[in-house]
């Protein structure tokens, strides 16, 4: 975790973060000196304490709940990819595919670290999951998840598209909190991942699936079991305005559904995640 980057990011939200951290910047210096002496694993805790001091108050239980919900999903994604890279030799082709999965794994790890730090900062107790606590076969639905590359990518797509919908659904819950912008910045990263995973599935080696980088209709994944991930994505009415052929433009039903991603409620996402948690 790059703490300085996080501080710089918080500065975008709160231009006075450095002043809040220490009016005379002495504590900042002390913190960095401290940070250089402690193990990396200890940093999220120390960082959290520092942030809590900076904002001088704890976040509401509701906000902490949202952040822990997000953290659980990030652990799910992180362990899913990390295991594929470390413990499923030959699953992911060397070269571009391995590079892409590594990039995505690293982002999910960064999200885990960031959320852990943020929850601690807010005075909450961050969730924590090991690989052993997950069942990525979803109780047998995807038995080949770590032996068949196209199956692995199909599950990856479901996770990424779920992640996008989950963050979207929680944005209103974070309004007015300093965590909204970071959540939005994670949200669009998950969408970039989803777009790329869908392209990987489209490639011959990934299964040659007829699929686009964007979500078309109620379940374009080709996997019946993924239906809950795409429930409601066939919506063509936004804020009461019908998007199909809007104002006489040639906007097909498919384009109308694909041009807007839909949110999922926390309950809907938790039901999906529960399939993969032992």
């Amino acid at each position, binding site marked *: 975790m790059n703490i300085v980057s996080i501080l710089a990011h918080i500065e*975008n939200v709160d231009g006075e973060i450095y002043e809040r951290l220490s009016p005379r910047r002495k504590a900042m210096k002390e913190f960095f000196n401290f940070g250089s002496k402690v193990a990396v694993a200890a940093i999220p805790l120390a960082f959290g304490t520092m942030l809590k001091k900076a904002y001088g108050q704890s976040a509401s239980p509701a906000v902490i709940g949202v952040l822990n919900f997000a953290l659980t999903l990030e652990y799910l994604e992180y362990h899913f990819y990390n295991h594929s890279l470390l413990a499923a030799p030959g699953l992911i082709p060397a070269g571009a595919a391995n590079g892409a999965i590594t990039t995505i794994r690293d982002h999910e790890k*960064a999200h885990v670290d960031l959320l852990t730090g943020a929850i601690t900062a807010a005075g909450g107790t961050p969730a924590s999951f090991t690989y052993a606590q997950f069942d990525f076969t979803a109780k047998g639905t995807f038995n080949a998840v770590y032996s068949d590359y196209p199956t692995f990518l199909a599950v990856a797509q479901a996770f990424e598209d779920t992640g996008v919908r989950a963050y979207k659904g929680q944005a*209103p819950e974070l309004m007015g909190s300093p965590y909204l912008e970071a959540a*939005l910045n994670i949200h669009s990263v998950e*969408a970039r*991942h989803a777009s790329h995973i869908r392209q990987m599935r489209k490639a011959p080696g990934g299964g040659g699936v007829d699929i686009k980088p964007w979500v078309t209709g109620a379940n374009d994944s080709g996997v019946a079991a993924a239906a809950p991930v795409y429930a409601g994505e066939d919506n063509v009415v936004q*804020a009461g305005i019908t998007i199909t052929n809007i104002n006489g433009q040639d906007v*097909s039903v498919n384009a109308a559904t694909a041009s807007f*991603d839909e949110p999922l409620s926390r309950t809907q996402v938790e039901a999906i995640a529960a399939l993969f948690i032992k």
Partner: protein
Amino acid sequence: MKNLREQDQQEFLQKERNIFTSPLQRRSFLQFAGASAAGIALLAAGCKKDRDDHPHTNDGSVTLDFKNDFGILNYAYALEQLEAAFYVQVVNTPYASMPANEMSLLTDIRDHEVAHREFFKNALSTAAIGGLEVNFSTIDFGSRESVLGTAKAFEDLGVSAYNGAGKLIQSADYLTLAGKIVSVEARHAALIRDLISNGTFADNSVVKDNGLDTSRAPGEVLSIAGGFIKTKINVSNLPS
């Protein structure tokens, strides 16, 4: 001695802040800013005499007043107008030997951007700014490199604009709507990046070490977009 130490600390912090402005982004910013001197007029809050909600003015200019959600939605509407106009021309005048797969994807993106543009127009109704006149003189629509390079810049810009605007939105419904659109823009951005160079869908020019995508404040976004817009855009109550 103490002053010197403080100065060191300041410089250190300043340097770290610059992490967010990668050399690449900086270069493209300068490129865009230099593309056209016309386009954008950033007016300090309070300088503008006409403070009513009517976004149309006699000289053909439009006004984005960030005092409320209408201003932010019009800001999004302006960006969607720019993107839609770009992709309409990309599809109308395809670059040399455009493969069928790329034509199909770029046509999809055109349709999405047109849908976004028309959505904002209808949602804003009488509060909507007028149609913007674009200036694509710096784009070579016959060149794949020029078209995809511009598409990448527009998509990444759009993602950062929505990400930066989220905290300014007062209505939960509008925040959700912005969220519905920004993730589609991010899907576009990743695809365009992969068309240019596979695997760059979320590289460190946009997603930093902490796993966070880029945010840009409206002033910065409009400075960049302004290079492609002929219509004068007046801005008031610009958030810092």
